[in-house]
């Protein structure tokens, strides 16, 4: 299955863009809320300060002192409350502050702009406790229903601050101030929406650009792959043509020898026969003469008529025998050519079914015969065969493999040497070894010998496809091709082929 780059990038980048957008919005929200809290806290502290400046010394200090001894219901009905409440209302009118509460040091509500709450004990409240410890505590709260000055509001977001109030160095009481931030939050939400829209547009554009880039890149990659495949096919083809060319050159050379001496001999024999024409005429004439006179001991020859012819006879009695020997050699030459053609036919097997039961020894013999014509005479070929059962295979493909191995072996032998081809049955396998007496495979070359395009020959000489193709062919037959030994004394390539072709039959042909 081909890797689909565009799909992959589309899906993954979409996920990451969404993640990034979400993170951005979340981050914005956090920053905006924190800012708002700080701002409102500062505003609340200011409000407190205004209250304190206006009310603290004048009203609350004596009130607190007085309230100390009062019970909660008494406190609620204290006459000073009304006065303080009026002042507070005056101060807060038109502001965003919704509620103000004052606690004494024990946590009792001594004043609330919501008068009903006066006297409530809030000493357990964490905000109060924080304030008593000297910290200003602020938090955002949402209230479904909230009684503010003069009215009850619904569904508001409020900032609630507990602010310690000092009397000299000592904390004398705690202010609690609520201010409304619903409009602020609305603004934040609106900005958030704009941000989401902006992010959608920006990331969308980026996403589109990325998509286009990747789609184009994929187009290029696909094109390159197609070109590479074509190049590989061409190389495989040229490898085939190269080995074919080598084969043809070898065969041409092998054919050339019998052609050369046969041509020469036939020409000489024809000349010889032409020279024999006259003696034959004379002899025939004489024979005719003898036949015409049966039962006589001597015949008359009219030399007047035939002297010229007879004296022109200049015949070596060995001439006919020599011509016969020449033609005998020609016959020999024709026999050599017939053998070659037969081997060629066996080698290519164009006239056979693709997968047939084959005697590998016979195939190997043919390959060796063919290979001999192409490899130098200094290299000796040794056949070391044991009888093999028939193997279901594609013989022309296996011939290609063995020819390739033998040619490689020949190239590994720089001077005199030999190549031994050994066949054996091992268990349920046929094992064929091609053993050369060459210089071995260098260590740095060894790991790459089956790599496609790897070659130690000059560019344009070797395609680097011989061994990879050979290994493919052997594997398609369910077997394996490997190097079983290599040293400075030579190399052994081993082909193992399973005898039980229980699985699929080897594929018919390669492109």
């Amino acid at each position, binding site marked *: 299955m081909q890797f689909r780059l565009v799909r992959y990038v589309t899906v993954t980048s979409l996920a990451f863009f969404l993640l990034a957008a979400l993170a951005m919005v979340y981050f914005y929200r956090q920053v905006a809320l924190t800012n708002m809290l700080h701002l409102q806290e500062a505003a609340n502290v200011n409000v407190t300060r205004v209250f304190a400046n206006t009310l603290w010394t004048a009203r609350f200090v004596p009130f607190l002192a007085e309230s100390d001894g009062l019970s909660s219901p008494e406190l609620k009905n204290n006459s000073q409350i009304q006065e303080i409440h009026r002042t507070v209302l005056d101060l807060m009118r038109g502001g965003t502050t919704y509620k103000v509460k004052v606690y004494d040091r024990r946590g009792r509500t001594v004043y609330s702009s919501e008068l009903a709450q006066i006297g409530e004990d809030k000493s357990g409240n964490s905000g109060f406790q924080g304030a008593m410890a000297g910290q200003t505590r602020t938090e955002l709260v949402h209230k479904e229903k909230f009684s503010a000055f003069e009215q009850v509001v619904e569904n508001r977001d409020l900032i609630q601050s507990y602010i310690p109030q000092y009397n000299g160095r000592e904390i004398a009481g705690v202010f609690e101030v609520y201010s409304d931030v619903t409009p602020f939050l609305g603004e934040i939400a609106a900005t958030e929406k704009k941000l989401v829209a902006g992010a959608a547009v920006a990331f969308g554009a980026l996403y589109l650009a990325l998509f286009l880039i990747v789609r184009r890149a994929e187009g290029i990659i696909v094109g390159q792959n197609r070109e590479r495949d074509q190049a590989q096919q061409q190389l495989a083809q040229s490898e085939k043509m190269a080995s074919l060319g080598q084969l043809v050159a070898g065969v041409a050379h092998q054919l*050339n020898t019998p*052609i*050369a*001496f046969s*041509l020469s001999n036939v020409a*000489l024999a024809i000349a010889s026969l032409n020279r024999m024409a006259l003696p034959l005429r004379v002899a025939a004439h004489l024979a005719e003469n003898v036949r015409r006179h049966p039962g006589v001991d001597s015949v008359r020859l009219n030399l007047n008529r035939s002297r010229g012819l007879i004296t022109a006879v200049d015949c070596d009695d060995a001439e006919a025998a020599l011509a016969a020997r020449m033609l005998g050699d020609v016959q020999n030459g024709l026999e050599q050519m017939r053998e070659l053609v037969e081997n060629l036919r066996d080698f290519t097997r164009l006239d056979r079914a693709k997968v047939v039961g084959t005697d590998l020894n016979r195939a190997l013999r043919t390959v060796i015969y063919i290979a001999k014509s192409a490899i130098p*005479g*200094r290299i000796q070929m040794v056949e070391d065969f044991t009888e093999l059962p028939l193997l279901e295979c594609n013989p022309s493909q296996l011939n290609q493999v063995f020819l390739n191995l033998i040619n490689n072996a020949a190239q590994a032998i720089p001077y005199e040497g030999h190549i031994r081809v050994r066949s054996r049955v091992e268990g349920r396998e046929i094992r064929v070894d091609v053993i050369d007496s060459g210089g071995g495979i260098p260590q740095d070359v060894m790991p790459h010998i089956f790599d496609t395009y790897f070659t130690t020959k000059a560019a344009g000489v070797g395609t680097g496809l011989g061994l990879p193709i050979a290994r493919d062919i052997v594997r398609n037959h369910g077997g394996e091709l490997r190097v079983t030994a290599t040293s400075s004394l030579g190399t052994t390539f081993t082909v193992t082929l399973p005898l039980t072709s229980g699985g699929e039959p080897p594929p018919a042909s390669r492109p």
Partner: protein
Amino acid sequence: MSAISLNPPASGTESRGRILCVDDEPNILRALSWLLQKDFEVVTAAGGDEALALVRRDDFDVVISDQRMPGMSGVDLLREVKAIAPRAMRILLTGYADVQSVLRSVNESEIFRYVAKPWSVTELPKLVAQAAAIARRHPAGAPIAGDLPAPDGKGSILVLDGDPATHALVEVAAGDVAEIVHVSNVVDAVHCLIDREFSVLVAETHLGPSIEISRFICLLKQRHPRLVAVVLAEDSATDTVARLVNQGQIYRFIPKPAKAGYLRLALRSALVKAEQLHAQGELVKRHAVDALDTEEAARLEADLALAQSLVRVSPAPSDAPPPGNRLARAWRRFFGTGRA
């Protein structure tokens, strides 16, 4: 010794020559014997070692050898024959030879002819007769090998090549031992050879991508038999080299890229050879060449006549540095010359 002499040397004086044929195929040996025995005394050997033993023992006029044989190759055999029996003419008879052995047959074995199998029944006896006659009438000069006597400096080399690099290389290789004249086209070469005599010709087989001049080199060699030809070429196809041997009797064929040291040795040896040819005019006959195809020769002659009538393309050659200035050379080195 399993050598068989099919024609006993009964009447040695009548035989037109003693021929040694070497091939690993007995059929070929028999065919050659039958073909040649009428006119020559033919001895055969089935391999290089056997042939060398025969050459050491006997005197042969012509040695014909196959190239591909188990053991010693034909080229190696003929090189040894050249050393042992320099008088014998050497012919390589082969169905197929790789480029390397063809080059070695020229440079090391200095063969007289390169004959392809199958041979012509009419031509081969004629060729052998010619070779035998030359061997009998014109014994070889002293072998040129090992430590060369320094050329006396009077030699001159004509370099015909379109590539400035070659001119520079020849200048480096032989500038100190000979006068060198550089030309880059056929017209100039013809004019130079008319004006004066040269000892050695160094030539490429191609001037530019489309002008093939191996036949022209052969023709020059026919017209100036004493000119020692050294071909320094990129294209070392078997056919070309074979033609240059048979029709041009070139002295050396050096494939490009050539190393200066090797070229220096080859040119020195060529200069000595030229001196030898000059001193012993007889020797020229040992390098008789096959005539070119008549039609081809006529066309070339016409071209040559035309070339002679033309004005020189470049000014009269002198000891000036090879054509192409430094900038052009740098340009070519950086971008390549476009020649594969």
